[in-house]
């Protein structure tokens, strides 16, 4: 029972984690909560659905299309919704409000276009879950777990081992000086959004496969927001770990106290945690102890 609940928690956490990586990436550089991330997830889910049905292809081509599509959508959103505000030196918080307005717009747009209909992917996986010894592991969630870990490792590699990645990290504290070194900061931001959008594309495909595809699918991004903030200081590793902790916490409360009180208890626990660990999960793990090479 406990084992099954831990698996349930990790599988829920994997959903949150996959969304949180992309969310935290933009959060760490542009310092705002990008709620349009949810819309990119939602649109990618539709894109993958259309593509896999139209061309009758399997998981991997669809995944590729979702990643490229999600990345492109995110860049377009950045160019239309955020860049003009940055160019006019609008306050940071306007980016956040703009991202909310954009996500509302896209949700209403898809509802108007498709009449609020629900869609389902045809099976891209041979089976949907593994069962042995009375324990069930949902395969899509396993894939999400793998994807979020691969994404995290890949991102850490890019951020710490490539010049572009170093530039992205530098831009997290200073958006103007990189220009003086010959770094095209707009390009850098576009790259960041592309990566974030590609991650949203992966999340969109897997969420679409495990849930249905519908205009409100992106609403789950609120959990990514929670994980990112609890993760602390825009730390990617902190956000991913916080996402898993959040999944486990919610599952355990639901399993042993009752689903009706889950939001009450989980938020209380979170606030208490932040009171005692004001550095967030990143602080808990010593990921932000001031040394640059350590901060994820």
């Amino acid at each position: 029972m406990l084992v099954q609940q831990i698996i349930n928690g990790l599988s829920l956490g994997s959903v949150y984690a996959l969304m949180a990586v992309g969310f935290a990436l933009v959060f760490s550089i542009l310092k705002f909560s990008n709620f349009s991330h949810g819309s990119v997830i939602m649109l990618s889910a539709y894109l993958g659905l259309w593509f896999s049905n139209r061309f009758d292809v399997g998981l991997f081509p669809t995944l590729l299309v979702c990643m490229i599509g999600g990345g492109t959508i995110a860049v377009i959103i950045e160019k239309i919704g955020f860049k003009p505000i940055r160019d006019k030196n609008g306050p940071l918080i306007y980016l956040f409000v703009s991202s909310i307005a954009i996500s509302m717009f896209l949700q209403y747009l898809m509802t108007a276009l498709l009449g609020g209909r629900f869609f389902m992917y045809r099976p891209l996986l041979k089976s949907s879950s593994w069962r042995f010894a009375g324990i069930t592991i949902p395969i899509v969630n396993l894939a999400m777990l793998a994807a979020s870990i691969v994404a995290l490792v890949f991102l850490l590699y890019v951020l710490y081992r490539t010049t572009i990645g170093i530039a992205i990290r530098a831009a997290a504290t200073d958006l103007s000086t990189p220009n003086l070194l010959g770094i095209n900061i707009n390009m850098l931001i576009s790259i960041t959004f592309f990566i974030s959008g590609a991650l949203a594309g992966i999340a969109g495909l897997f969420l679409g496969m495990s849930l249905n595809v519908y205009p409100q699918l992106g609403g789950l991004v609120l959990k990514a927001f929670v994980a990112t903030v609890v993760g602390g200081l825009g730390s990617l590793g902190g956000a991913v770990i916080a996402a898993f902790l959040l999944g486990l916490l919610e599952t355990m409360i639901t399993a042993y106290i009752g689903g009706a009180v889950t939001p009450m208890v989980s938020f209380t626990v979170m606030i208490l945690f932040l009171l005692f660990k004001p550095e967030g999960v990143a602080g808990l793990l010593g990921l932000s102890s001031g040394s640059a090479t350590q901060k994820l």
Partner: protein
Amino acid sequence: MKKSLVIVVVALMLLAGMQVSAAEPIVVGAIVDLSAATALWGQSQARGIEMAIEEYNAAGGLLGRPLELKVYDFKMDVQEGITAYQRLANQDKASVILGAPVSNLLLALAPIADQVKVPIVGEPSDQRATTKSPGQPWPYIFASQATCVDYGETAASYAIYELGLTQLAVINNKGNAWADEIAEAFIAYAKEHGATIVSREAFNWGDTDFRSQLSNIQRAQPEAIFVPEYLQEASQITRQAREMGMDMVILGPNSYTPPMVELIGSAADNVYFVNNVAFDLPQIKEFTARYVEKYGIEPTVNAYFGYDNAVIALEAIRRADSANSQEIRDALEKTENVQGLIFNYTFDPVTHRTDEFIATVIKIENGEYVTVGQYKPVKK
């Protein structure tokens, strides 16, 4: 140049004159959700209403006057619903107002309609929307649908007396009034009739993962799970339960209607649900075919309700022989044997609802909706 201008002006004046001379249309209002989370139902409902209005207009309208339909979106927001009602009543001078496939708006509108005095025909399954206090109806609200209690009791009765299942589990969103009301009625009935609720699980708005609750249910080993939920949640709960190897009977209300099977495929097998209507009835089939031809999309149950609400309202106008809201209200109270797609409606003047609820139980088998038959709960 000048000459042509004169011709245009004269033509316009003639046109305007014609419109004045033609009978003033009777305005029928509708409040539905076209843009938010329940847009699928709202749009279906609006189209059902539209088809009814077009039929009546094709037959020459009512009282020698054409019918004009005004549909307002309220995006699931009670405040917007209230202003839409006020607008229809005051601005558009609607004679009667249809709609809202959800109860919460009608709960807010009931006392307002009491002052504004334009009747509403909708399908709130919350008893309180039509009943002010026991034995006293809200005078201006009428419902074409049965109550949550009816759905819950019917499902419980069917499980206990027809399927012989007495170890039952219930899972629903505590924040969804409709779901919770049905769930409570189910539980109350089941306990009264000797069944045991072995597990009662809850979740919250926005949840998409129900494995934790389902694990608890699985451990309690029920013979059937009752899932009174909206489409999205019901589809996920059913699918996740099947993934976890829970092959037992799943019971539900009318949210298991299409597109459920389309969404979760074989996971929907072994589901029994309480519906308002059998899909294989000739009038439903004929209407569905016309709907698909006209709009290029399958209707949801709400299209049938929309159509029926319109028919109930329009027949009341015919009987009242007046477009006056008060007189329509009085006529609505005397609705008797009005044949709609779903029911033959006769309103009980005390409850403002159909006087008798006969459910149709449908089983999902090999991805097909199989009508089991009409069913009335066993009463003690």
